[in-house]
C-alpha cells in the first residue's frame, strides 16, 4: 500500500503525499501505478463506502482530470491526465458496485476466488439441483411446443433466484461493514470468500435461466 508515499510535483517541485493535484500549485500529478483504488478517491482503506458519494466524487475528479480538458496543455499535463483518468476509471469500476468492491477487497487481502469458482458451493447445492431440474422440464415443454405453459414456471424461478441474490448481497454488505472493527472475527475473510463465490455461481445460474427465458419468449 502506497497511500503515504510522497510525490514531487513536476511543475513546482513541491513534495507532497500521493494526491491527484499538487497541494501547492494544483497541477495534475501522476499517481504511482500501484496505488490502491481507495486512495485514488482519497478514501480511507475500508470496504464499506457511500456509493452515491463515490459517484459524486468520480464526477468531480473527472471534471478536473479528463484528457479532453488538457488537449491544449503541456506534455506532462497530458500524460498525467491520461494515466490518472485510466486509473480513476478502473478504480470507479471496481468500487462502485458491492460485488466488484468485495472482489477487489479480497484481492487486497492477497486472496482470490480462483478455481473454486467452478465448484458448486455446498450451501447452494440443493438450490442448483432444483433449478436445473426445472430448467430441463421447461426446455422439454418448449421443444414439445408448449412454451406458454412454462412461462409462469420460469418467472417463479427468476423471482426465487433474485431473492437469493438479494439475501447474499445483504450478507456481503454486512461482511464488508465489519472490516473497520479492530476486534473483528478471524472468520471474516473466509466468509467473504464464500459469499463471493456463491454470488458468482448464482450469476452463472441466472444467466442459464435468462437464456431459457429468452428462448421461451421467442418461441
Amino acid at each position, binding site marked *: 500500500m502506497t497511500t503515504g508515499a510522497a510525490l514531487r510535483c513536476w511543475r513546482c517541485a513541491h513534495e507532497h503525499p500521493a494526491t491527484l493535484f499538487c497541494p501547492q500549485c494544483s497541477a495534475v500529478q501522476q499517481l504511482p501505478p500501484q496505488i490502491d483504488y481507495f486512495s485514488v478517491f482519497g478514501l480511507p482503506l475500508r470496504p464499506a463506502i457511500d456509493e452515491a458519494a463515490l459517484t459524486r466524487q468520480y*464526477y468531480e475528479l*473527472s*471534471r478536473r482530470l*479528463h*484528457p*479532453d*480538458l488538457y*488537449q*491544449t496543455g503541456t506534455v506532462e499535463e497530458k500524460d498525467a491526465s*491520461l494515466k490518472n*483518468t*485510466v486509473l480513476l*476509471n*478502473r478504480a*470507479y*469500476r471496481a468500487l462502485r458496485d458491492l460485488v466488484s468492491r468485495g472482489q477487489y477487497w479480497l484481492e487486497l487481502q492477497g486472496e482470490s476466488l480462483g478455481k473454486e469458482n467452478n465448484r458448486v458451493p455446498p450451501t447452494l447445492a440443493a438450490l442448483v439441483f432444483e433449478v436445473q431440474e426445472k430448467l430441463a422440464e421447461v426446455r422439454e415443454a418448449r421443444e414439445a411446443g408448449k412454451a406458454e405453459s412454462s412461462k409462469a414456471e420460469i418467472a417463479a424461478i427468476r423471482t426465487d433466484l433474485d431473492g437469493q441474490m438479494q439475501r447474499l448481497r445483504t450478507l456481503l454488505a454486512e461482511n464488508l461493514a465489519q472490516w473497520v472493527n479492530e476486534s473483528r472475527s478471524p472468520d471474516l475473510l473466509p466468509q467473504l470468500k464464500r459469499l463471493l463465490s456463491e454470488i458468482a455461481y448464482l450469476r452463472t445460474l441466472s444467466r442459464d435461466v435468462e437464456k431459457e427465458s429468452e428462448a421461451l419468449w421467442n418461441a
Partner: protein
Amino acid sequence: MERIVGIDLGTTNSLIAFVDGDTPRVIPDAQTGDPLLPSVVAFLPDGQVEVGQGAKAVLADQPLTTVQSVKRFMGLGMEHVSTEDRRRYRFADETGIVRFALPSHPYTAPEVSAFILRALRDRAEAYLKEPVRKVVITVPAYFNDSQRQATKDAGRLAGLEVVRLVNEPTAASLAYGLDKKEEGLIAVYDLGGGTFDISVLRLHTGIFEVLATNGDTRLGGDDIDQRLADHFLLSDVPEALRHDPHVASNARRVTEQAKRALSDHDETQLRLEVPEKRVHITRTLTRKELEAAVDDIVARTLAPCRQALKDASLTPHEIDEVVMVGGSTRMPLVRQRVGEFFGREPLTDLNPDEVVALGAAVQADTLAGRRKDMLLLDVVPLSLGIETMGGVMSRLIERNTTIPTSVKEMYTTAVDDQTAVDIHVLQGERELVQDCRSLARFKVPIEPQPAGMPRVEVTFMIDANGILNVAASDLRTGRERSVEVKPSYGLTDEEIERLLEESIDFAEDDVTRRLVIEARTEADTLLHVTEKQLRQYAAFLEPGEEARIRAAVSALQEAKSGEDYNRTRDLIEELGTISAPFAQRIMDKSIGEVLGGKELGKV
C-alpha cells in the same frame, strides 16, 4: 486558439458544424443553402471526381462508378461483404481489405471517404474564411476498432488532423442536453442510413456519462430502402429486368422517395421510368404496405435496446427521455415501435439529421479549450481480448468500460532464444476466436534468452477515441520495446504515407487554394489593426505618413481579392514595413503609460 470543427460523416449524408460564440451551427452549402452533403462520390469518365449532389445526379446513370454508403465498408475485409453489396458495387479483389474497382484505379473505403471530408472542409473554409485543419469526426458508437481506425485514416488522407472520434449518440446527447438543460437518464436511439446505435446515458451537472451502448453497424435506412426496392421489383417488374443495374438503381431511387413521402402521407404514387429498357410503371404504394414489408427490420433494433438496458442494469420505464436521432427515425413505424418498447413518447423535436454534427461541434469546442462546463464519459462498445491456446478468446477489457482505460499483461517465452512474442488482438462477445473480429497482430521483439526467462509487460490501452494502442516494455532491462502492428482489415502507416504521397499531384490545387485563403486571412487581420490604429492614434502620425500607409492599405486590399497569394504576401510585408515606425510610437506610449501607472502606485 486554433478552431476545431465537428463533422458528421454519415452513411447517407454528411455535415460540418462549428460553434459560433456559444451556439453550434451547421454550415450550409454556399449555393443551395442545404446543410446536408450527400455522402456520394462519383468517379467520372474524364477522371474528375464529383461529391455530393453532383454525384447523386449521375448515380442512376453510372451506378457502378458512383460510390454511395461508403461508410458501410469502412474497416472491413472482402469476406464481410454481402452478396447484395456485391451486386451493387464492383470490387477490385476477392480477398483482403475492401477496394472499389473504379475507372482510374481501385480505391479503399477511407480514400473514398476522404473525398467527402475534403468537400466538407472546402465548404467550411469558404464559409469561415480561414483554413480548417483540425476536426472532430463522429462514428457509430458500435463501430469496432478497425472501423474507427479507418475513419481516422480517411481524415488523415484528406489532410486533416482528427483530434477526436466521438460516438454519434453521445454527440447527439450533448446537443440535446445543452439545449434542454435536463438531467437524468436518457436513451439515444440513432437509426441512420446504414448503422444503428442505442446508448443509455446519465446526464448530471454537465457530465454526460454513457452507461451502456449497443447496436448494429450493418442496419439502417439503406436496408429499408433495399427491402422496399426488392419488394417493388419482385411485384411489379418483369423478371428479366430486375437485375439490370439501371433498372435496379432507378427502382431504389423512386422507392426511397416514396418511403419519405409515406412518413407524412397514407399513400403515394410510385413511378419508375427507364425509357431505354422500355420500363414505364406507375402504381400506388400505401404506408401499410411499406410497414408490412419492413417491420422485421425495424424490430431488429429492439434486441440491442434490450441488451443496452440490461448492461446498464435498468428497465425501459426508468428512462426519463428517449431521444431520436438519424433520418430513419422520421418513419412513423420506427417511432411507434420505440414508443411501445420504452413505454413513452420519444422526443422528436430536434432535427434528427443535424443533432449529431451540432454535438460534434460542441465537443470540438471543449477540445479546443474554449469550453469547460461539460464533459463526456464514453465507453468501449465491444469487449477486447487476445487469442489464447486452443483458439479461445481471453477477455481483457469488458464492453461498456469507461474510456480511456488500460490493462497490462505479462508475457514470457515458451522456447529457448525465442526472439519475439506474437499477440493476436480480437474484439467481440463470443468465446471462440473464430467468432470474434480480428483487429490486428502485434509482434513484440524479445532479447534471446532461455525459455521462460524474459518478462515482457504489454499494455493494451483504449484511448478516448475508442482506439487500441499497444505498448510493451521488457521488465528485465526496463526498456520500452517497439511493437510492430499488422492491422487485419486496415491500412498500415506506410500505406497511408504512400497514398498521401500519391495524392500530392492531385492535391496541388488544394495547396494553392489553402495558401490563398491563408494569405487573405492574414491580410484581413493586418488591415483591421492598421485601420484601428489610424483612427485611434492619429495624433502619433508624422506629416505625410498617413498618405503612405493609406496607399499601402489600398494596394493590399486590391491584391487580397485576387488569387496571387505571393503578391498578397509581399504587400502584407510592405504595409508592415511602412507602418512600423508608427506602430513603434504607439507601443512606446502604452509602455510609458504602464510604467507611469506603476510610478504613481509607488507614491
